[in-house]
């Protein structure tokens, strides 16, 4: 029984009526998110991320399949779901420009049913937390994009949601504002244990920084799901290390390292890789190992043969590498087909 799950979806499909033919925005999505988990949906425009959020926030009905939030059905138990969720979207222009920041938040607190005193207290607390203290009495229409999004984020926390949906929350923000928002999100995680976050984004860094697990979605399907580390391992079974030695082992040279147990390959990558002796104050090697434990034998063998290890770094594929591997194209080459408008 999935009651204890924060989010549970099975076979969720959503087809939009469209001309000349219907558009499938979601195609049989299965998803389980644990309470307290920060979960990311990573995918390009048109992947179906926002459609899934709209179904989970009770704004859309699935064409088929079932979905539950905290055990409540998104089709039949909307009132209960709306009491435990909130949603913030990137580029959101909600509210009324003539209100001040404080008034706007108070107005929304009334929509979430907060008693007057609790409402004002929560508003003032969130204004401090999100760094809007200086703008407290400023009219909303005079806020910058970044300040506006902080305000939206504060609105999203007014009712202490058990499941918070962030739909491309840093869309259009400058680097500093996006960083601030991510920090606020992480602070919320620390301060509100048991609360769940579902984030959609097409920024790899954001997904990696905020999320415990990530699903890579494209064209309405989940292509891969796991922790960032698990996803990377999907495209790179071996462990790649870049090491630097003060010189090559005196006996056997590079072949000695390449022949060690667990070493799949060893390639020299420094300026003197051609072996003519020029520019060789350090020797750089790229090692492909069967697993991380093989590194121990490499380090021991190098030391036994008179060389010293002066640099070591593990080389991992990025989430973008994972995406390209799974989808066959990068985010920048996203398919702008029928599903794009549905995002």
């Amino acid at each position, binding site marked *: 029984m999935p009651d204890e799950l924060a989010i549970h979806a099975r076979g969720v499909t959503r087809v939009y009526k469209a001309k000349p033919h219907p558009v499938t925005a979601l195609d049989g999505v299965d998803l389980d998110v644990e309470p307290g988990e920060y979960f990311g949906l990573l995918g390009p425009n048109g992947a179906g991320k926002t459609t899934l959020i709209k179904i989970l926030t009770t704004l*859309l009905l699935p064409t088929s399949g079932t979905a539950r939030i905290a055990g409540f059905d998104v089709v039949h138990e909307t009132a209960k779901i709306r*009491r435990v969720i909130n949603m913030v979207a990137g580029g959101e222009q909600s509210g009324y420009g003539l209100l001040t920041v404080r008034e706007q938040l108070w107005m929304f607190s*009334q929509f979430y049913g907060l008693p007057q005193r609790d409402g004002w207290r929560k508003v003032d607390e969130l204004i401090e937390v999100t760094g809007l203290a200086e703008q407290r009495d400023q009219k909303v229409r005079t806020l910058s994009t970044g300040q506006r999004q902080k305000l939206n984020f504060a609105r999203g926390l007014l009712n202490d949601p058990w*499941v918070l949906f962030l739909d491309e929350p840093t869309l259009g923000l400058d680097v500093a504002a996006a960083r601030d928002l991510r920090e606020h999100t992480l602070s919320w995680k620390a301060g509100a244990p048991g609360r769940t976050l579902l984030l959609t984004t097409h920024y790899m860094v954001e997904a990696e920084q905020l999320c415990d697990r990530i699903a890579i979605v494209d064209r309405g399907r989940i292509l891969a799901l796991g922790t960032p580390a698990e996803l990377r391992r999907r495209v790179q079974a071996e462990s790649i290390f870049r090491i630097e030695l003060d010189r090559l082992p005196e006996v056997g040279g590079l072949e000695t390292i390449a022949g060690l147990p667990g070493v799949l390959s060893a390639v020299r990558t420094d300026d003197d890789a051609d072996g003519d002796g020029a520019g060789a104050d350090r020797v750089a090697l790229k090692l492909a190992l069967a697993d991380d434990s093989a590194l121990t034998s490499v380090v021991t063998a190098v030391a036994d043969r008179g060389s010293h290890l002066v640099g070591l770094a593990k080389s991992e594929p990025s989430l973008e590498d994972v995406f390209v591997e799974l989808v066959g194209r990068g985010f920048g080459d996203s398919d702008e087909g029928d599903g794009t408008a549905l995002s």
Partner: protein
Amino acid sequence: MTDGARPPRTPREAANWSRDRVIRANLRAVVGRAYPRIIGLTREPSWIFFEILLPFLAVSAFVFVYRALGAPEEFVGFVVVGGAMTAFWLNVVWMMAAQFYWEKDQGNLELYFTAPMHLMSVLAGMAIGGLVMTSSRALAVIVIGSVLYGVSYRIEDPLLLVGVFLLTMVPLYGLGMLFASLFLLWGREAFHLAQLLQEPIYFLGGVNFPIRHLGLVAGLVVATLPLAVGLDAMRQLIFPGEASEGVLPVGTEMLILAAMGVAFLLAARLALGYLETLARREGRLTLRWQ
């Protein structure tokens, strides 16, 4: 937040609201939505020019025409009162009715849908805010008109007048709440329709003259337009006498207004339910690009 109780420990606890809490939450939503409308009065002073002085020119034109024709002096009062009530009609058609349409554009509608309140509370908040806002405008028209054109009122039962006014507002804003859903469903076509109907409503609503003069048609009008019924009853109470003789006695018109109020509020609730179902099924009412 649990209205004084301890914070909920699980989502299931947080979702479990008593009936009392649901009612209180919805009342708070009404206050919350009314707030920006009321506060807007002090923040947007341009309304004094656009919504009092400009419409007052139309009132003045009728005053001059009636005086030139030698109409009974009560007709000047009819026009001033009609001008004041026009403010409410305009508020209903252009603000109440169009509100959901604009809210969708701003992205507020999605937040209303996902908030734990009934959309009727949002509409009620809009209506109350609009009513307060427009009352001040209507009052300004009456004061300016009375001072400029020397209108004298003979109100024998002020309480009854206030009662009729409030009773008129219920179906009028109920109609606005119904329009809010319909405008969202029909989009631009609804705006064109509202524009098309504006002058006929002024004419049939008896804004500038008692609808009794329309003869048989008046009976039909009374049965459908809350503005016409309310104005007819209010004129009878403000200017008692032959010139303001109503289509029906005030008591009967109050009953009609009460029936209209119930009917329009019910219709608004049904339309909202349909709207939400459609929005969730087709997704075309909450997604900004549709």
